[in-house]
C-alpha cells in the first residue's frame, strides 16, 4: 500500500498500473530470481504437501481431526471432478487431480489473504507450466491407449459426418484440440486472476486516496463507496478463485478422460 501511494504526485487520482502491481523486485538484494511470486509459490507447495501429509500419512478407517477435514476436499474432487469424466479410471488419477485442485486453490486464495495479497496465478508462467504438463500427459495417454494413428484419426474424423466435409473440417478439429485447448486452459486461469487483482487494487486505491490522501467533503463519499466496493469485491473474488481452481481441475480431468476413451 505504501509504495502505491508514494509516487502519486499532488493533484489527481491515478489508477494503479499493471507495472507497479505485477513487476515485483527481488526480496534478497543479490538473488535476481527470488521475488515475491516465487516465494509464494514455494510456500503454497509446502503448505499443500504438509496438509495432505498431516491428513493422509496414517489413515484410519474412521477419520478424525485433520484427516476428516481434508477428506472432505478429497471427496469433492473425486465426485465432482474425477468421476464424471474418468468413470472407473478415477482412482488412478486422484493424486494428480487433488494436487492440481488444492495447489491452484492455495495459489488463488493468496490473493486475498492480508499482507500476502498476490494471486500467484497472475503471472502467466505458473498456469502455463501446469497447462503444458497436462497437455503432454493428454497426448501421451492418447497415443498409449489408442495408438499413434488411431488417436489422431479418432480426434480429427468423428463418426457421423458426410465424407467430403471431412477435408474441410479436420483442420478445425485438430487446431481446436491441439492448440487452442491448452492455451485457453492456462489463459482462463491467468486472465481471471489478473483482472481480479487489478480490480481489487483499483478499488482499494480509490478508497485510500479519497479518504486519507486528499480528504475533501465531496470526495469522502467516493472514498466510502470505494471501501464498500473493495469489501464486496473481495467476497466475489473469493468465489471466483474457488470456481477457477475447480474449473482448472475439471478441464484437466476432461482432457485426460478424452484421451483415455475415444470420443464417440
Amino acid at each position: 500500500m505504501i509504495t502505491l501511494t508514494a509516487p502519486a504526485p499532488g493533484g489527481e487520482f491515478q489508477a494503479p498500473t499493471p507495472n507497479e502491481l505485477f513487476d515485483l523486485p527481488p526480496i534478497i538484494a543479490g538473488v535476481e530470481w527470488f521475488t515475491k511470486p516465487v516465494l509464494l509459490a514455494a510456500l503454497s507447495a509446502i503448505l499443500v504437501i504438509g496438509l495432505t501429509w498431516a491428513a493422509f500419512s496414517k489413515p484410519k478407517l474412521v477419520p478424525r481431526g485433520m484427516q476428516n477435514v481434508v477428506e472432505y476436499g478429497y471427496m469433492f474432487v473425486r465426485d465432482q471432478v474425477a468421476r464424471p469424466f474418468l468413470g472407473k479410471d478415477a482412482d488412478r488419477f486422484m493424486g494428480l487431480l487433488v494436487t492440481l485442485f488444492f495447489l491452484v486453490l492455495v495459489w488463488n486464495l493468496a490473493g486475498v489473504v492480508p499482507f500476502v495479497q498476490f494471486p500467484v496465478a497472475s503471472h502467466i508462467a505458473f498456469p502455463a507450466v501446469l497447462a503444458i504438463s497436462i497437455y503432454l500427459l493428454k497426448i501421451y495417454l492418447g497415443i498409449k491407449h489408442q495408438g499413434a494413428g488411431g488417436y489422431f484419426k479418432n480426434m480429427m474424423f468423428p463418426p457421423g459426418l458426410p465424407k467430403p466435409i471431412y477435408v474441410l473440417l479436420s483442420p478445425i478439429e485438430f487446431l481446436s484440440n491441439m492448440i487452442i485447448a491448452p492455451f485457453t486452459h492456462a489463459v482462463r486461469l491467468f486472465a481471471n486472476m489478473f483482472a481480479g487483482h487489478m480490480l481489487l487494487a483499483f478499488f482499494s486505491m480509490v478508497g485510500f486516496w479519497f479518504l486519507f490522501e486528499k480528504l475533501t467533503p465531496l470526495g469522502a463519499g467516493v472514498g466510502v463507496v470505494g471501501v464498500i466496493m473493495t469489501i464486496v469485491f473481495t467476497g466475489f473474488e473469493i468465489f471466483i478463485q474457488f470456481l477457477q481452481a475447480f474449473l482448472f481441475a475439471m478441464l484437466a480431468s476432461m482432457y485426460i478422460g478424452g484421451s483415455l476413451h475415444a470420443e464417440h
Partner: protein
Amino acid sequence: MSAQERRPEEDGRDFADAMWSIPSYLLAGMAIYGGAGWLLDRWLDMSAFFPIGTVLGLVLAGYLAYRKFSR
C-alpha cells in the same frame, strides 16, 4: 437400474464437453480459414480474402459444432 443411473452422468459429461469445445471450434475455424485467406491476400496482393476467409471459417465451424453435438 444401472442404465438409468448412468444416463444423467453421461448427459452431464456430454453437455460439458459440448460447452467447452464449441467456442474453441469457432475460434479455430476463424483462425484457420482467416489465416488461409490472409496468406492468399499476401500472395495475390489483395485485401479482401481475409474477411471472407474469417467468416467462412466461422460458418464452417458452426456447422461442425451443429453436426457433432445436435444429432
